[in-house]
């Protein structure tokens, strides 16, 4: 008999930290105790995105959106709503004009979102492969193995316009093509789940909420390029993601969609997990590959690119988690479907971790081309406490500040770069009038200086100099020349550092100066700035 009700309980990290695990057990218990097990399916899901309001429970088909639910609420929820059909009003999410019962899509946080990568997050139990399969999971892999050729896969990806979501934005199809065309006895596929941006958790939520989609995509990459082994390089700081990946790999092998002779096709692909160990620079692809090899993760000069000479010198496809997560659905719905969303140069959607001084913080997925204003004010609900918006920072330690004049910019790879920031992996941090741009720039430089591997001089020395100057300005001891010096050193770092870390390390400082120069000047004591104005 089909279930009459579904009770979805978020078991993402943020909700678990507020006892969603206990809540889940309690709800299951009360459901059983009330003889409802036949009618109600209780589901553990990944992140709904609205972590700030967690733990979140969704009851379908009534579309009741419960927030901040505590284990003590379990009994009432079950006996009132699930047994008697009377939703528990006091736990239903409310905002001006919205009462989230029967109209979840009206919640402003969700309105302008469009979910492709996160399509299953919050809908399925990530620890149960059958739920993934029920939502067209592994259909793309099957198609790739039996119906279309590797070249067709590349063509579909090219049509989709999918570009890397790890920061650089390199076209995925082209990367795969290089590896496919490279001649070698062994090739690899690597997933970059190092997520180093210190204020972002897109990849974590994807892995926790829908691990099979990325495993399926890795197998597709393997078949397309001729690799039989994949590695997931994941931060050791993400225990829940690691656990769910392990469970997912084991289940996929059991179901014959990973491992030897997948679905009887003759194609074999195994996936292993390797743990990062707290070095930001290891998110850089050449460093990451060395780390998988068990070595110190110090970047090396490219070219050669990993696509031709990567892990243990063999051609290696390396992609970000979100990039992989978009691939199965591109292959089932078609590249053209994906390309309908987005801007001229940037297709599809992007997942962002919206944090900082906004009312609604959380994980969002939006079409490329959405304006920052929509993100901050419509989805984010604006700045709390009647404060004034000051800036939004994208791209993490490699990105930059974007000021209010540019709030109507349509977000894509090119526009963000033109503003002196970058897409990055998806951190979006909103700052209000209380936040000092000098201090925020110093914060980022402090981070990159600590994380620099020290191999090349511009990054090692330049970063430290900029940090020192920022500290000096923050302490009220700066001069106007110091501001100019920062800009000069920043330019040198950009031009001559060996890897992306050094090339972009100055960006937070440079963009802060570009848009908030006056704030830097104001921080300089009067006697040191005669020539400034």
């Amino acid at each position, binding site marked *: 008999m089909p279930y009459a009700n579904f009770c979805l309980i978020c078991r993402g*990290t*943020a909700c*678990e*930290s*507020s006892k969603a695990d206990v809540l889940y057990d309690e709800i299951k218990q009360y459901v059983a105790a009330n003889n409802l097990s036949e009618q109600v399916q209780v589901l553990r899901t990944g992140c709904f995105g*609205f*972590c*700030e309001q*967690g733990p979140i429970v969704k009851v379908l088909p009534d579309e009741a959106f419960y927030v901040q639910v505590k284990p003590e609420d379990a009994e009432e929820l079950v006996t009132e709503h699930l047994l008697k059909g009377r939703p528990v009003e006091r736990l239903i999410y409310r905002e001006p004009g919205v009462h989230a019962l029967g109209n979840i899509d009206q919640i402003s946080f969700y309105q302008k979102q469009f979910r492709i990568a996160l399509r299953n997050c919050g809908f399925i139990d990530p620890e149960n492969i059958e739920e993934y399969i029920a939502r067209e999971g592994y259909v793309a892999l099957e198609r790739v193995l039996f119906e279309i050729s590797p070249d067709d896969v590349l063509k579909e990806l090219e049509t989709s316009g999918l570009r890397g979501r790890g920061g650089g934005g390199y076209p995925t199809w082209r990367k795969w093509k290089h590896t496919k065309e490279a001649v070698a006895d062994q090739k690899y596929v690597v997933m970059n789940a190092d*997520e180093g*941006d*210190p*204020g*972002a*958790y897109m990849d*974590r*939520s994807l892995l926790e909420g829908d691990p099979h989609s990325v495993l399926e995509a890795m197998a597709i990459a393997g078949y397309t390029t001729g690799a039989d082994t994949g590695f997931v390089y994941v931060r*050791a*700081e*993400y*225990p829940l993601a690691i656990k769910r990946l392990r469970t997912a790999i084991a289940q996929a092998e059991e179901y014959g969609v990973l491992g030897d002779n997948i679905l009887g096709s003759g194609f074999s692909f195994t996936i292993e997990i*390797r*743990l*990062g*160990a*707290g*070095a*930001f620079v290891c998110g850089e692809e050449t460093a990451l590959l060395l*780390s*998988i*090899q*068990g*070595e*110190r*993760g110090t970047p090396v000069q490219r070219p050669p690119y990993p696509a031709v000479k990567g892990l*243990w010198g063999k051609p290696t496809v390396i992609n970000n988690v979100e990039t992989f997560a978009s691939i199965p659905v591109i292959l089932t719905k078609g590249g053209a479907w994906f390309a309908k969303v987005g801007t001229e140069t940037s297709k599809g959607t992007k997942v962002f*971790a919206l*944090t*900082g*001084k906004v009312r609604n*913080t*959380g*994980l969002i997925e939006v079409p490329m081309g959405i304006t920052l204003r929509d993100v901050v004010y419509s989805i984010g609900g604006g700045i709390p406490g009647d404060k004034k918006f000051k800036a939004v*920072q994208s791209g*993490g330690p490699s990105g930059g500040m974007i000021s209010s004049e540019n709030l109507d910019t349509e977000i894509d790879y090119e526009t963000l770069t033109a503003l002196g920031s970058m897409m990055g992996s998806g*951190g979006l*941090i909103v*700052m209000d009038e209380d*936040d000092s741009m000098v201090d*925020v720039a110093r*914060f*980022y430089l402090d*981070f990159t200086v600590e994380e620099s591997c020290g191999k090349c001089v511009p990054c090692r020395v330049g970063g430290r100099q900029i940090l020192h100057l920022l500290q000096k300005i923050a302490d009220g001891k700066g001069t106007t020349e110091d501001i100019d010096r920062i800009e000069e050193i920043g330019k040198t770092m950009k031009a001559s550092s060996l890897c992306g870390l050094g090339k972009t390390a100055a960006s937070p400082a440079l963009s802060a100066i570009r848009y908030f120069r006056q704030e830097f000047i104001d921080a300089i004591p009067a006697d040191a700035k005669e020539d400034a104005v």
Partner: protein
Amino acid sequence: MSVAIENRAELSKELAAFVEEWRNKPGNLIMVLHKIQEEYGYVPEPVAREVARRLRVPEAQVFGVLTFYNFFNLEPPGKHRIAVCMGTACYLKGGGSILEDLSEYLNVPINGVTADKQFSLQAVRCIGCCGLAPAVLIDGEVVGKLTKEKMRETLKKYRENTQEALVTSQAL
């Protein structure tokens, strides 16, 4: 833990089996070091030496890797491990002052261990709960939306638990 010749330690059965399982896999070193840290809470030098021997990796390489990666602790941590998030979102919402307050309250330097070995205090980067900023991990559990007061309150519980445990163990 018994310390054997040349300052190398004997390995527990489980650890020895893990090393054996990984011995011939390329790129095993970091995974083995993680396992050591999981077992001891840090990577004791004698254990690292023994593992180097078994994996046939030069000790210099083992220590080179250990010092490169922040995740590995070379000193034993306190009984309770407090990791204050200093990622961007938490920093903007006052993570820095929580860290400072803790350091003062517990009388321990940042990245140090209290004299009674009960608490170690660390600054870490984004623990992936930015929606709950500012956030702290205590013994692997996330405590979010913190204020200084809430933080101190939370710590009290840990303090009491330890003291209770002390009293019971003395009574036994």
